[in-house]
């Protein structure tokens, strides 16, 4: 989801008997539900995979500010503006918690930024879609943060201590994000004018499938998740979470009087869940590999912020050093 494209080694999961004593000890700690902490022994592949996963997650929080930042200055009321500003500020915080967690694994913040800017690290495909109307702020909070919550709640139990603790903080803050989005949808779809209702439906039409894509490829095609699940850095399969999201969202759309853009959507009495259409996976692969509607714009904005801020970062450090020297001279 926020880390949709974490490719592990592709090797099959090694059984306990085949492991080295250190790796077996490590796996048994995870099986017992113990947390792995930064200085503990961990297999190199666990470390590499986690850096990639937490890094992607952090980048998604940061890049994810851009589509919503687009509407802060144009929010319809001062209250909505304050709400959206607080939400976007939270996302910056989420990015920071996660960068810190990744740094405990031995990668630096600057290295992660550089990998993002050079396209060597990904962020969630969802943030490469444009936010065209105010209703999109409703749809993003409701669906995108809703999907994020679905993924993040189980990650509070992930095996790596700093990651789990970051997720606990994040989950505490996410609920407000989804509710403020749904609240915008209520105002527009239930209580709004015909035009506003149309805008709300249009936003749902555009964000439904991209939201489903957030959970990553179908389990049949994601051969790499078994190792991550053994390591408890992935807690559920992509399809499990996607199904859960559909089942929770359908009644919410019904309450709003909106139609989910899927002709095949239907309650299945046998499985007691909704049958639904898969998103277009070709589109997903296109977007994730750089060809979505806003990829260039999003990365461009990140690079510009990083480059334009360089002199500020340097000046602040120089100032702090000078201040420290002056203090030392005074004794």
């Amino acid at each position, binding site marked *: 989801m926020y880390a949709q494209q974490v490719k592990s080694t592709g090797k099959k999961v090694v059984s306990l008997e085949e492991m080295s004593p250190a790796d077996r000890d490590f796996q048994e700690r995870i099986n017992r539900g113990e947390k792995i902490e930064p200085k503990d022994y961990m297999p190199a592949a666990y470390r590499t995979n986690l850096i990639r996963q937490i890094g992607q997650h952090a980048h998604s929080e940061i890049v994810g500010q851009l589509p919503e930042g687009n509407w802060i200055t144009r929010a319809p009321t001062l209250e909505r503006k304050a709400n959206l500003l607080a939400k976007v*500020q939270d996302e910056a915080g989420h990015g920071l918690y996660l960068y*810190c967690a990744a740094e405990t694994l031995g990668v630096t913040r*600057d290295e992660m930024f550089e990998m993002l800017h050079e396209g060597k690290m990904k962020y969630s495909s969802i943030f490469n879609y444009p936010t065209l109307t105010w209703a999109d702020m409703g749809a993003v909070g409701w669906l995108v943060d809703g999907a994020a919550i679905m993924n993040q709640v189980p990650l509070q139990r992930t095996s790596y201590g700093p990651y789990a603790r970051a997720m606990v903080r994040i989950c505490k803050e996410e609920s407000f994000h989804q509710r403020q989005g749904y609240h915008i949808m209520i105002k527009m779809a239930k209580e709004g004018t015909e035009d506003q209702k149309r805008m709300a439906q249009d936003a749902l039409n555009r964000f439904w499938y991209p939201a489903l894509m957030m959970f990553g490829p179908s389990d049949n095609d994601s051969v790499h998740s078994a190792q991550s699940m053994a390591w408890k850095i992935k807690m559920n399969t992509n399809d499990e979470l996607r199904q859960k999201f559909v089942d929770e969202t359908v009644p919410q759309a019904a309450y709003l009087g909106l139609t989910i853009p899927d002709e095949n959507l239907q309650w299945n009495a046998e499985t007691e869940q909704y049958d639904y259409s898969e998103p277009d996976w070709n589109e997903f692969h296109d977007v994730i590999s750089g060809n979505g509607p806003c990829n260039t714009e999003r990365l461009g904005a990140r690079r510009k912020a990083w480059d334009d801020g360089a002199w500020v970062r340097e000046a602040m450090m120089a100032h*702090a050093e000078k201040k*420290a020297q002056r203090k030392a001279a005074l004794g």
Partner: protein
Amino acid sequence: MSNSKEWPLWEVFIRGQHGMSHRHVGSLHATDAEHAIKNARDVYTRRNEGVSIWVVQAKDIAASSPSDKGPLFEPASDKIYRHPTFYDIPDEAGNM
């Protein structure tokens, strides 16, 4: 390359509303202590989580190593007489 220019890492400790000790909440980058406290305010207390902030540079923290876990902590594990439940007190004696 750019690593050398990275702002130092600080660990952040916050005391909440209810008179508890400062608790480690996470870390952040900042140029000096004053800057670290300002950043900690923004990153870790957006919802009234704290009434007091401590920051300390991560490099100044000394930590026990995972391999010392046995020698450091095992001696306590067989001293169950340090816990109140070790001592049976008859009900007749009342609440204790």
